[in-house]
């Protein structure tokens, strides 16, 4: 198991190398000059020259890349051209926020998703099943910014129960987590239902029932555990995407997460910020996937990583 984990972590190296090259190259292929942007419409040529020099944009590309990678290996991701803040600090602040938001969102998503999925599966074609599957369809189809605005309008402006913008307190996260979790809840519900339906029809469930076990034990202990593998896959993917930053949710609710940092970095050609964020997001995605694979072994002892 340990060897497997180490092997998987070693695979991070080529992944990150690839990500760093691609993000570096893409950013420089896009037209637009960070120094000109910083100088604004009534730009001053002396200033533009000085900025290019200070950040090394006057160097050849391969020199810039090697210098960047050399610094990264020492834990230095450079300085944001916009805010002059070290990128490491920005990433830390923003990632912690995104982590909080994603945790809340995935909590909401899995609670709603699992409960709806299990009930729908055990009472297939009942009114509850139909209603929750219609709800899931809405959850998947609804654009997240529209749902976000709707939630803000209802709970913030009309009912005034929750704040519509801001961050820092738990209540600020309720609406964004709901908006963000809705789509994931829908996916998890559908996956749970499908997987449960398959497991419930298997022989060992019939045997368990024939042995006189209570229905509750049959469903929650025997069926659910075996039905979890595909659900965990979905769970891991959804959580990975969430940690990659939810640009739309963060923009609509004006939250300082990693997604907005990245998008604003792109618009401002803040190279160091975008490169740093890409590397961070790629790392998280790989780690979340690894954790998902480890979770398989916990739910299904047949799976062994040797």
């Amino acid at each position, binding site marked *: 198991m340990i060897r497997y984990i180490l092997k998987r972590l070693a695979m991070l190296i080529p992944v990150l190398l690839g990500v760093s090259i691609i993000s570096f190259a893409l950013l420089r292929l896009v*037209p*637009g000059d960070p120094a000109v942007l910083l100088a604004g419409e009534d730009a*001053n040529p002396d200033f533009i020259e000085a900025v290019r020099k200070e950040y090394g944009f006057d160097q050849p590309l391969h020199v810039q890349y090697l210098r960047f990678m050399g610094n990264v290996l020492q834990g230095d991701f450079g300085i944001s051209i916009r*805010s002059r803040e070290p990128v490491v600090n920005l990433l830390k602040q923003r990632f912690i926020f995104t982590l909080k938001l994603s945790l809340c969102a995935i909590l909401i998503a899995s609670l709603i998703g699992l409960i709806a999925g299990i009930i729908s599966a055990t009472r297939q074609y009942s009114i509850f099943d139909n209603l929750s599957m219609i709800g899931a369809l809405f959850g998947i189809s609804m654009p997240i910014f529209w749902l976000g605005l709707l939630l803000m309008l209802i709970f913030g402006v009309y009912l005034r129960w929750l704040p519509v*913008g801001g961050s820092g307190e738990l209540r600020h996260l309720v609406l964004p987590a709901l908006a963000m979790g809705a789509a994931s809840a829908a996916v998890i519900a559908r996956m749970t239902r499908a997987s449960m339906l398959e497991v419930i029809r298997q022989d060992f469930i019939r045997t368990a029932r024939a042995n006189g076990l209570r229905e509750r034990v049959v469903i929650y202990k025997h069926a659910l555990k075996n039905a979890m593998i595909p659900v965990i896959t979905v769970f891991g993917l959804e959580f990975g995407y969430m940690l990659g930053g939810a640009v739309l949710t963060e923009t609509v609710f004006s939250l300082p997460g990693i997604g907005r940092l990245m998008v604003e970095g792109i618009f*401002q050609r803040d190279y160091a910020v975008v490169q740093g964020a890409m590397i961070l997001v790629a790392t998280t995605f790989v780690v979340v996937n690894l954790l998902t694979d480890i979770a398989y072994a916990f739910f299904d002892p047949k799976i062994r990583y040797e």
Partner: protein
Amino acid sequence: MKRCLFVTALMVALLALFPLQAVAQTVIYAAGADPDTLDPANAESNPSEAVNRMIYENLVRFDAQLNLVPGLAERWEQAADGMTWTFFLRQGIKFHDGTPFNAQAVKYFLDRMIGPEKPSRAGLYAPLVESAEVVDDYTVKFHMKAPFAFLLNNIAHSASGIVSPTAHEKMGKDIGRSPVGTGPFKFVNWVHGDQINLTRNDDYWGGKPKLEKIVFKTVREDSARVMMLQSGDAHLAVRIPSEDLPRLEKDPLIKLDSTETLRVLYVGFNNAKKPFDDPRVRQAFNLATDRESIVKHIYQDLALVASNIVAPRTTGYFPMPAIAHDPTKAKQLLAEAGFPNGLKAKFISPQGRYPKDFEMAQALQQQWQQAGIEVTLDTMEWAAYLAATRKPVEEADVELYLLGWAPSSAEARWVLFPNFTTSQWVPQGNNRLFYSNPTFDEHVEKLTRAADIAERDHNLKLAQEIIYQDVPLLPILITKETIGYSSKLKGVINSPLELTYFDHHTELLK
């Protein structure tokens, strides 16, 4: 039981992640974008300037009508030959870090502007001022390289906020992350991409500010800003979209304020490229443009028709006759210029940089069609757009483009000089039009060096008339900035410079 414990532990852990904040007498300001820096000399965006106006002060400042009034200087004198300016400073003022404000601080400020650090706004002083001289503790002299008619406007510019010399010595360029000025509000902290916190300066020389705390929040999404205002999560929101106005007007708890700005949105020509080097072609575009209809139907009258690239509230503005909408005459001019069957051209516009910019570009495309002008319309993201319109003349393939200009020093020279004079062609300056007219250049030179106002204004008028007749660009409209704020908030300053800020008189009623 075990499960119960687990759930409780989870809840406690979640709550621990989010400490409850004490509620103070705080005003929340919802801005449209994150400031870039709080160093006045390097600030290039409106959110930065708005915050800087609350932290820093200038020797001379603009009042709400953009008149020049005393700030940190009580009074000033200009020598008869225009070569020296003497400023008499207010006494007993301290920076937020305790450093005394005096003539040395002003000299430090000027030395920085003209010195080797070269901040982005160095252009306000470096070409004009030779040196600063400390006469005594509270008197300072600026020695000019040549007379300059608008020096006071540059001194009132937000870039000329006086920074604490001790703080700048200590932090250098990083002063932009922990600013120290003399203004009514002090900097507390900055969570990048989220908010800036200010607290009042109890020792402010103008009297104790009435507001205790200001939270300057970045809320990018227009509709989110409006909803925060409606729900009471923000006391003030800038850049209210015109669609939301009718709804907000009905809300008794919200006050709206639309201010006519100094910004003119225009369509620029590449005057160096055929056929736009022919004034008849440019005039044809001018006559084919129906400005009234754009202002009325696209902007719902939240803009004003422009005929001059200088906006009316700018110092040194001279009114020009309205430009008629006459597609027939436009066709005729095109025929004279050798295009009896109409003309094809490329037109680019940003999307979302200015209010309704792309909608306006689409309307123009349709209007020009009636005069036989077919343009293809493309949009680009802002960084690419700036790059495309900043190429030197031999590489420039842009034909028509939409942009806006507002003189941040509130005077007409800062429209005429950077955009139209021959020495300012991009990439050296900002003349993206590749316009060149020696007579015009001469008038700009004369008005810049004018020793008296009459001579200055005479040349300003002639220069504006030349642009009106030559049509190197099509001025379309003057924008208005609409802010909304809680009716409990009194004394909000909504400047025509597109800056909204508070001073020590601003108050929040219970």
